[in-house]
Protein backbone atom coordinates (compact mmCIF):
# COMPACT_ATOMS: atom_id res chain seq x y z
CA UNK A 1 0.00 0.00 0.00
CA UNK A 2 2.13 2.80 -1.32
CA UNK A 3 1.69 6.15 0.50
CA UNK A 4 1.63 8.98 -2.06
CA UNK A 5 4.72 11.15 -2.37
CA UNK A 6 5.27 14.53 -0.74
CA UNK A 7 4.69 16.56 -3.87
CA UNK A 8 1.36 14.90 -4.47
CA UNK A 9 0.24 15.44 -0.88
CA UNK A 10 1.34 19.09 -1.09
CA UNK A 11 -0.63 19.64 -4.28
CA UNK A 12 -3.63 17.82 -2.83
CA UNK A 13 -3.70 20.08 0.22
CA UNK A 14 -3.25 23.28 -1.79
CA UNK A 15 -5.97 22.13 -4.20
CA UNK A 16 -8.44 21.44 -1.42
CA UNK A 17 -7.78 24.75 0.31
CA UNK A 18 -8.07 26.71 -2.92
CA UNK A 19 -11.38 24.99 -3.71
CA UNK A 20 -12.59 25.80 -0.21
CA UNK A 21 -11.46 29.41 -0.51
CA UNK A 22 -13.29 29.90 -3.78
CA UNK A 23 -16.45 28.53 -2.18
CA UNK A 24 -16.66 31.57 0.07
CA UNK A 25 -14.61 34.40 -1.43
CA UNK A 26 -16.04 37.00 0.93
CA UNK A 27 -13.94 35.87 3.83
CA UNK A 28 -10.79 36.28 1.76
CA UNK A 29 -11.49 39.81 0.65
CA UNK A 30 -11.04 41.07 4.20
CA UNK A 31 -7.23 41.36 4.23
CA UNK A 32 -7.31 42.98 0.79
CA UNK A 33 -10.03 45.47 1.76
CA UNK A 34 -8.17 46.15 4.99
CA UNK A 35 -4.95 46.88 3.11
CA UNK A 36 -6.68 49.38 0.80
CA UNK A 37 -8.71 51.01 3.57
CA UNK A 38 -5.70 51.54 5.85
CA UNK A 39 -3.77 53.25 3.07
CA UNK A 40 -6.73 55.56 2.34
CA UNK A 41 -6.89 56.58 6.00
CA UNK A 42 -3.57 58.39 5.89
CA UNK A 43 -4.46 61.01 3.26
CA UNK A 44 -7.70 61.60 5.20
CA UNK A 45 -5.89 61.88 8.49
CA UNK A 46 -3.11 64.10 7.18
CA UNK A 47 -3.28 66.83 4.56
CA UNK A 48 -3.22 65.01 1.21
CA UNK A 49 -0.43 67.17 -0.29
CA UNK A 50 1.67 65.03 -2.66
CA UNK A 51 4.97 65.97 -0.98
CA UNK A 52 3.84 64.79 2.45
CA UNK A 53 2.21 61.60 1.15
CA UNK A 54 5.23 60.75 -0.93
CA UNK A 55 7.44 61.07 2.12
CA UNK A 56 5.36 58.66 4.19
CA UNK A 57 4.32 56.36 1.31
CA UNK A 58 6.84 53.53 1.94
CA UNK A 59 6.00 53.38 5.64
CA UNK A 60 2.25 53.41 5.05
CA UNK A 61 2.31 50.73 2.34
CA UNK A 62 4.51 48.42 4.37
CA UNK A 63 2.77 48.88 7.72
CA UNK A 64 -0.58 48.31 5.99
CA UNK A 65 0.77 45.14 4.32
CA UNK A 66 2.09 43.87 7.69
CA UNK A 67 -1.20 44.53 9.47
CA UNK A 68 -3.23 42.98 6.62
CA UNK A 69 -1.19 39.78 6.77
CA UNK A 70 -1.55 39.81 10.56
CA UNK A 71 -5.32 40.01 10.14
CA UNK A 72 -5.23 37.13 7.64
CA UNK A 73 -3.14 34.88 9.90
CA UNK A 74 -5.98 34.66 12.39
CA UNK A 75 -8.05 32.55 10.01
CA UNK A 76 -5.22 30.30 8.87
CA UNK A 77 -5.89 27.18 11.00
CA UNK A 78 -8.88 28.11 13.14
CA UNK A 79 -11.48 26.66 10.78
CA UNK A 80 -9.66 23.34 10.38
CA UNK A 81 -9.08 22.91 14.11
CA UNK A 82 -12.69 23.73 14.93
CA UNK A 83 -14.21 21.20 12.53
CA UNK A 84 -11.72 18.45 13.41
CA UNK A 85 -10.05 18.09 10.00
CA UNK A 86 -6.73 19.20 11.50
CA UNK A 87 -6.87 16.13 13.76
CA UNK A 88 -7.18 13.87 10.76
CA UNK A 89 -4.32 15.74 9.10
CA UNK A 90 -2.16 15.22 12.18
CA UNK A 91 -2.97 11.50 11.98
CA UNK A 92 -2.32 11.15 8.26
CA UNK A 93 0.82 9.36 7.02
CA UNK A 94 2.02 12.60 5.44
CA UNK A 95 4.38 14.78 7.49
CA UNK A 96 2.35 17.47 9.28
CA UNK A 97 5.06 20.07 8.58
CA UNK A 98 4.58 19.66 4.84
CA UNK A 99 0.79 19.79 5.05
CA UNK A 100 0.86 22.96 7.14
CA UNK A 101 3.35 24.49 4.70
CA UNK A 102 0.91 23.62 1.92
CA UNK A 103 -1.93 25.24 3.84
CA UNK A 104 0.17 28.37 4.39
CA UNK A 105 1.10 28.45 0.71
CA UNK A 106 -2.57 28.22 -0.30
CA UNK A 107 -3.40 30.89 2.28
CA UNK A 108 -0.66 33.13 0.86
CA UNK A 109 -1.99 32.66 -2.67
CA UNK A 110 -5.39 33.86 -1.50
CA UNK A 111 -4.34 36.70 0.80
CA UNK A 112 -0.67 37.59 0.27
CA UNK A 113 -0.47 37.58 -3.51
CA UNK A 114 -3.50 39.91 -3.97
CA UNK A 115 -1.70 42.43 -1.75
CA UNK A 116 1.29 42.33 -4.06
CA UNK A 117 -0.87 42.70 -7.16
CA UNK A 118 -2.85 45.63 -5.81
CA UNK A 119 0.11 47.47 -4.29
CA UNK A 120 0.78 49.60 -7.44
CA UNK A 121 -2.70 51.11 -7.18
CA UNK A 122 -2.23 51.84 -3.49
CA UNK A 123 1.23 53.26 -4.18
CA UNK A 124 -0.21 55.46 -6.88
CA UNK A 125 -2.81 56.76 -4.44
CA UNK A 126 -0.01 57.75 -2.10
CA UNK A 127 1.99 59.49 -4.83
CA UNK A 128 4.79 56.94 -4.52
CA UNK A 129 7.19 57.70 -7.41
CA UNK A 130 6.56 55.31 -10.28
CA UNK A 131 10.16 54.04 -10.46
CA UNK A 132 9.82 52.68 -6.90
CA UNK A 133 6.75 50.56 -7.71
CA UNK A 134 8.52 47.56 -9.31
CA UNK A 135 10.95 47.29 -6.39
CA UNK A 136 8.08 47.59 -3.93
CA UNK A 137 6.16 44.82 -5.66
CA UNK A 138 9.26 42.64 -5.72
CA UNK A 139 9.95 43.26 -2.05
CA UNK A 140 6.29 42.62 -1.15
CA UNK A 141 6.38 39.39 -3.16
CA UNK A 142 9.29 38.27 -0.96
CA UNK A 143 7.95 39.70 2.30
CA UNK A 144 4.32 38.54 2.27
CA UNK A 145 5.26 34.82 2.27
CA UNK A 146 7.57 35.44 5.23
CA UNK A 147 4.73 37.19 7.05
CA UNK A 148 2.40 34.30 6.23
CA UNK A 149 4.91 31.78 7.58
CA UNK A 150 5.52 33.76 10.78
CA UNK A 151 1.77 34.21 11.11
CA UNK A 152 1.37 30.47 10.59
CA UNK A 153 3.73 29.62 13.42
CA UNK A 154 2.03 31.96 15.85
CA UNK A 155 -1.47 30.98 14.69
CA UNK A 156 -0.60 27.33 15.30
CA UNK A 157 0.50 28.25 18.82
CA UNK A 158 -2.66 30.20 19.66
CA UNK A 159 -5.29 28.35 17.59
CA UNK A 160 -6.79 26.51 20.51
CA UNK A 161 -7.13 29.57 22.72
CA UNK A 162 -10.28 31.51 23.26
CA UNK A 163 -8.88 35.04 22.97
CA UNK A 164 -6.21 34.50 20.34
CA UNK A 165 -6.61 37.80 18.43
CA UNK A 166 -4.72 40.32 20.56
CA UNK A 167 -2.23 37.68 21.62
CA UNK A 168 -1.53 36.73 18.01
CA UNK A 169 -0.45 40.26 17.08
CA UNK A 170 1.71 40.52 20.20
CA UNK A 171 3.51 37.31 19.18
CA UNK A 172 3.85 38.13 15.47
CA UNK A 173 4.98 41.77 15.48
CA UNK A 174 8.41 41.47 17.17
CA UNK A 175 9.35 38.59 14.85
CA UNK A 176 7.95 40.31 11.76
CA UNK A 177 9.75 43.57 12.46
CA UNK A 178 12.94 42.83 10.49
CA UNK A 179 10.77 42.12 7.43
CA UNK A 180 9.16 45.53 7.84
CA UNK A 181 12.55 47.23 8.20
CA UNK A 182 14.08 45.63 5.12
CA UNK A 183 10.92 46.00 3.03
CA UNK A 184 10.25 49.65 3.80
CA UNK A 185 13.94 50.32 3.29
CA UNK A 186 13.87 48.70 -0.17
CA UNK A 187 11.04 51.01 -1.25
CA UNK A 188 12.74 54.01 0.36
CA UNK A 189 16.01 53.36 -1.47
CA UNK A 190 14.22 52.83 -4.78
CA UNK A 191 12.31 56.08 -4.28
CA UNK A 192 15.48 58.08 -3.89
CA UNK A 193 16.95 56.40 -6.93
CA UNK A 194 19.57 54.53 -4.92
CA UNK A 195 20.37 50.87 -5.38
CA UNK A 196 17.90 48.79 -3.33
CA UNK A 197 19.19 45.34 -4.18
CA UNK A 198 20.79 45.00 -0.75
CA UNK A 199 17.46 45.07 1.08
CA UNK A 200 15.97 42.70 -1.49
CA UNK A 201 18.72 40.16 -0.86
CA UNK A 202 18.14 40.40 2.90
CA UNK A 203 14.43 39.79 2.38
CA UNK A 204 15.23 36.80 0.16
CA UNK A 205 17.53 35.44 2.88
CA UNK A 206 14.76 35.82 5.48
CA UNK A 207 12.38 34.02 3.13
CA UNK A 208 14.74 31.07 2.79
CA UNK A 209 15.18 30.92 6.55
CA UNK A 210 11.41 31.10 7.11
CA UNK A 211 10.61 28.46 4.50
CA UNK A 212 13.16 26.02 5.91
CA UNK A 213 12.49 26.37 9.65
CA UNK A 214 8.93 27.50 10.21
CA UNK A 215 7.10 24.42 8.84
CA UNK A 216 8.64 22.31 11.62
CA UNK A 217 7.82 24.96 14.20
CA UNK A 218 4.25 25.06 12.85
CA UNK A 219 3.94 21.27 13.09
CA UNK A 220 5.33 21.22 16.63
CA UNK A 221 3.04 24.07 17.66
CA UNK A 222 0.01 22.39 16.09
CA UNK A 223 0.74 19.12 17.86
CA UNK A 224 0.92 21.05 21.13
CA UNK A 225 -2.38 22.79 20.41
CA UNK A 226 -4.09 19.52 19.47
CA UNK A 227 -2.81 17.84 22.65
Amino acid at each position, binding site marked *: MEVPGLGQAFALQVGRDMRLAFR*HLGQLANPLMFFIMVTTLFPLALNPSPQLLEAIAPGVVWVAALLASLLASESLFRQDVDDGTMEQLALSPQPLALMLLAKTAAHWLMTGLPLVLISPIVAYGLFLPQEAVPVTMGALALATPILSLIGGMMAALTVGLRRGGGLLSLLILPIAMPVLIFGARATDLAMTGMESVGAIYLLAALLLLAMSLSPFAMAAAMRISLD
Partner: protein
Amino acid sequence: MSTEPAEPGTESLLEAKDLELWRGERRLFSQLSFSLGTGELLHITGVNGCGKTSLLRVLCGLTLPETGEVSWRGQRVMRNRADYHAEMTYVGHRESLKGELSARENLSFDLQLRHASSPEDIDQALDRVGLARARDVMARGLSAGQKRRVSLARALASRARLWVLDEPYTNLDVPGRDFVDQVMSEHLATNGLVLLVAHQSHGVTGGRIRQLELA
Protein backbone atom coordinates in the same frame (compact mmCIF):
# COMPACT_ATOMS: atom_id res chain seq x y z
CA MET B 1 -5.31 -2.14 36.04
CA SER B 2 -3.40 -3.85 33.26
CA THR B 3 -5.21 -6.64 31.53
CA GLU B 4 -3.77 -10.08 30.80
CA PRO B 5 -1.13 -10.17 28.06
CA ALA B 6 -2.11 -10.84 24.45
CA GLU B 7 -2.82 -14.41 23.50
CA PRO B 8 0.53 -16.10 22.79
CA GLY B 9 0.81 -16.87 19.09
CA THR B 10 -0.74 -13.63 17.87
CA GLU B 11 2.24 -11.27 17.58
CA SER B 12 1.32 -8.13 19.48
CA LEU B 13 1.47 -5.06 17.24
CA LEU B 14 0.34 -2.31 19.58
CA GLU B 15 2.12 -2.00 22.94
CA ALA B 16 1.28 0.45 25.72
CA LYS B 17 3.75 0.55 28.61
CA ASP B 18 2.80 2.12 31.99
CA LEU B 19 0.92 5.08 30.56
CA GLU B 20 0.04 7.88 32.92
CA LEU B 21 -2.08 10.94 32.16
CA TRP B 22 -3.36 13.84 34.23
CA ARG B 23 -6.12 16.29 33.45
CA GLY B 24 -5.26 19.41 35.46
CA GLU B 25 -5.00 18.28 39.09
CA ARG B 26 -6.73 14.94 38.52
CA ARG B 27 -4.94 11.78 37.49
CA LEU B 28 -6.94 9.92 34.83
CA PHE B 29 -4.92 6.69 34.83
CA SER B 30 -1.44 5.47 35.65
CA GLN B 31 0.69 2.35 35.15
CA LEU B 32 -1.67 1.38 32.34
CA SER B 33 -0.11 -1.29 30.15
CA PHE B 34 -1.51 -3.63 27.59
CA SER B 35 -0.64 -5.08 24.24
CA LEU B 36 -2.95 -5.82 21.34
CA GLY B 37 -2.36 -8.49 18.72
CA THR B 38 -3.89 -9.29 15.37
CA GLY B 39 -7.57 -10.18 15.38
CA GLU B 40 -8.11 -8.63 18.80
CA LEU B 41 -10.60 -6.00 19.95
CA LEU B 42 -10.00 -4.02 23.15
CA HIS B 43 -13.26 -2.66 24.50
CA ILE B 44 -12.51 0.28 26.76
CA THR B 45 -15.32 1.22 29.14
CA GLY B 46 -15.72 3.51 32.11
CA VAL B 47 -17.88 6.25 33.54
CA ASN B 48 -18.09 9.62 31.84
CA GLY B 49 -14.98 11.72 32.25
CA CYS B 50 -12.79 8.79 33.30
CA GLY B 51 -10.42 9.49 30.39
CA LYS B 52 -11.49 6.97 27.74
CA THR B 53 -11.18 9.47 24.91
CA SER B 54 -7.93 10.82 26.33
CA LEU B 55 -6.54 7.28 26.41
CA LEU B 56 -7.48 6.80 22.76
CA ARG B 57 -5.83 10.09 21.86
CA VAL B 58 -2.67 9.00 23.68
CA LEU B 59 -2.70 5.71 21.79
CA CYS B 60 -3.11 7.60 18.49
CA GLY B 61 -0.13 9.81 19.31
CA LEU B 62 -2.25 12.97 19.48
CA THR B 63 -1.82 13.49 23.23
CA LEU B 64 1.53 13.24 24.99
CA PRO B 65 1.24 11.06 28.14
CA GLU B 66 2.80 12.21 31.41
CA THR B 67 4.96 9.06 31.40
CA GLY B 68 4.96 5.82 29.48
CA GLU B 69 5.17 4.92 25.82
CA VAL B 70 3.06 3.63 22.98
CA SER B 71 4.79 1.50 20.38
CA TRP B 72 3.64 -0.05 17.11
CA ARG B 73 5.49 -3.02 15.69
CA GLY B 74 8.06 -2.55 18.46
CA GLN B 75 8.87 1.04 17.51
CA ARG B 76 7.86 4.05 19.55
CA VAL B 77 4.94 5.86 17.92
CA MET B 78 6.37 9.30 18.62
CA ARG B 79 9.54 8.34 16.78
CA ASN B 80 8.08 7.05 13.55
CA ARG B 81 4.70 8.62 13.07
CA ALA B 82 4.53 8.07 9.31
CA ASP B 83 4.62 4.25 9.51
CA TYR B 84 2.19 4.15 12.42
CA HIS B 85 -0.34 6.58 10.94
CA ALA B 86 -0.17 4.75 7.62
CA GLU B 87 -1.54 1.64 9.35
CA MET B 88 -4.12 3.21 11.67
CA THR B 89 -7.30 5.23 11.35
CA TYR B 90 -9.14 7.24 14.00
CA VAL B 91 -12.88 7.89 14.18
CA GLY B 92 -13.33 10.52 16.87
CA HIS B 93 -16.26 12.35 18.40
CA ARG B 94 -16.17 15.05 15.75
CA GLU B 95 -16.79 14.09 12.18
CA SER B 96 -13.73 15.93 10.79
CA LEU B 97 -15.56 16.99 7.65
CA LYS B 98 -15.39 20.21 5.72
CA GLY B 99 -18.91 21.67 5.61
CA GLU B 100 -18.40 23.38 2.25
CA LEU B 101 -17.14 20.22 0.54
CA SER B 102 -19.35 17.33 -0.55
CA ALA B 103 -19.05 13.89 1.03
CA ARG B 104 -17.17 12.70 -2.05
CA GLU B 105 -14.72 15.62 -2.03
CA ASN B 106 -14.05 15.19 1.69
CA LEU B 107 -13.44 11.49 1.31
CA SER B 108 -11.29 11.76 -1.79
CA PHE B 109 -8.97 14.22 -0.03
CA ASP B 110 -8.66 12.08 3.10
CA LEU B 111 -8.08 8.85 1.19
CA GLN B 112 -5.70 10.18 -1.44
CA LEU B 113 -3.42 11.29 1.37
CA ARG B 114 -3.11 7.65 2.35
CA HIS B 115 -3.03 5.80 -0.97
CA ALA B 116 -3.86 6.32 -4.63
CA SER B 117 -7.64 5.92 -4.80
CA SER B 118 -9.72 6.34 -7.94
CA PRO B 119 -13.13 8.04 -7.94
CA GLU B 120 -14.67 4.57 -8.19
CA ASP B 121 -13.03 3.59 -4.90
CA ILE B 122 -14.52 6.70 -3.29
CA ASP B 123 -18.01 6.04 -4.62
CA GLN B 124 -17.78 2.40 -3.65
CA ALA B 125 -16.78 3.37 -0.08
CA LEU B 126 -19.73 5.74 0.17
CA ASP B 127 -22.13 3.16 -1.28
CA ARG B 128 -20.95 0.61 1.25
CA VAL B 129 -22.04 2.88 4.14
CA GLY B 130 -25.36 3.57 2.48
CA LEU B 131 -24.65 7.09 1.24
CA ALA B 132 -25.00 6.30 -2.45
CA ARG B 133 -27.62 9.01 -2.92
CA ALA B 134 -25.81 11.62 -0.79
CA ARG B 135 -22.44 11.54 -2.53
CA ASP B 136 -22.56 15.11 -3.81
CA VAL B 137 -24.49 16.70 -0.96
CA MET B 138 -22.50 19.38 0.91
CA ALA B 139 -21.26 17.89 4.18
CA ARG B 140 -23.05 20.60 6.18
CA GLY B 141 -26.28 19.43 4.54
CA LEU B 142 -25.91 15.88 5.86
CA SER B 143 -27.64 14.64 9.00
CA ALA B 144 -25.56 13.66 12.04
CA GLY B 145 -26.07 9.99 11.22
CA GLN B 146 -24.98 10.52 7.63
CA LYS B 147 -21.88 12.41 8.76
CA ARG B 148 -21.02 9.54 11.08
CA ARG B 149 -21.37 7.19 8.09
CA VAL B 150 -18.90 9.30 6.09
CA SER B 151 -16.40 8.97 8.94
CA LEU B 152 -16.95 5.22 8.92
CA ALA B 153 -16.51 5.16 5.15
CA ARG B 154 -13.17 6.92 5.63
CA ALA B 155 -12.07 4.28 8.15
CA LEU B 156 -13.27 1.40 5.95
CA ALA B 157 -11.57 2.65 2.82
CA SER B 158 -8.34 3.62 4.59
CA ARG B 159 -7.14 -0.01 4.47
CA ALA B 160 -5.70 0.58 7.96
CA ARG B 161 -4.69 -2.38 10.13
CA LEU B 162 -5.64 -0.69 13.43
CA TRP B 163 -9.04 0.95 13.90
CA VAL B 164 -9.35 3.42 16.78
CA LEU B 165 -13.09 4.00 17.21
CA ASP B 166 -14.45 6.51 19.75
CA GLU B 167 -18.18 5.94 20.25
CA PRO B 168 -18.80 4.77 16.64
CA TYR B 169 -22.45 4.01 17.40
CA THR B 170 -23.47 7.59 18.24
CA ASN B 171 -26.16 9.09 15.97
CA LEU B 172 -26.53 5.80 14.09
CA ASP B 173 -29.87 4.06 13.60
CA VAL B 174 -30.30 0.36 14.31
CA PRO B 175 -29.22 -0.83 10.83
CA GLY B 176 -26.25 1.51 11.16
CA ARG B 177 -25.21 -0.09 14.44
CA ASP B 178 -25.52 -3.59 13.01
CA PHE B 179 -23.43 -2.46 10.07
CA VAL B 180 -20.68 -1.22 12.44
CA ASP B 181 -20.67 -4.53 14.30
CA GLN B 182 -20.53 -6.41 11.03
CA VAL B 183 -17.58 -4.46 9.60
CA MET B 184 -15.70 -4.75 12.90
CA SER B 185 -16.17 -8.51 12.90
CA GLU B 186 -14.96 -8.66 9.29
CA HIS B 187 -11.98 -6.49 10.15
CA LEU B 188 -11.00 -8.76 13.03
CA ALA B 189 -11.40 -11.77 10.78
CA THR B 190 -8.90 -10.33 8.32
CA ASN B 191 -6.38 -10.01 11.24
CA GLY B 192 -7.12 -6.36 11.85
CA LEU B 193 -7.05 -4.73 15.32
CA VAL B 194 -9.73 -2.57 16.94
CA LEU B 195 -9.60 -0.20 19.88
CA LEU B 196 -13.20 0.52 20.77
CA VAL B 197 -14.68 3.01 23.22
CA ALA B 198 -18.43 2.48 23.50
CA HIS B 199 -20.89 2.68 26.37
CA GLN B 200 -23.30 0.06 25.16
CA SER B 201 -22.13 -3.49 24.53
CA HIS B 202 -21.04 -4.24 20.99
CA GLY B 203 -22.28 -7.08 18.88
CA VAL B 204 -18.93 -8.11 17.49
CA THR B 205 -18.47 -11.80 16.80
CA GLY B 206 -15.23 -13.64 16.08
CA GLY B 207 -11.76 -12.44 17.02
CA ARG B 208 -10.60 -12.13 20.65
CA ILE B 209 -12.55 -9.60 22.69
CA ARG B 210 -10.72 -8.07 25.63
CA GLN B 211 -12.00 -5.67 28.22
CA LEU B 212 -10.31 -2.65 29.84
CA GLU B 213 -12.21 -0.87 32.58
CA LEU B 214 -11.01 2.66 33.44
CA ALA B 215 -11.78 3.63 37.04
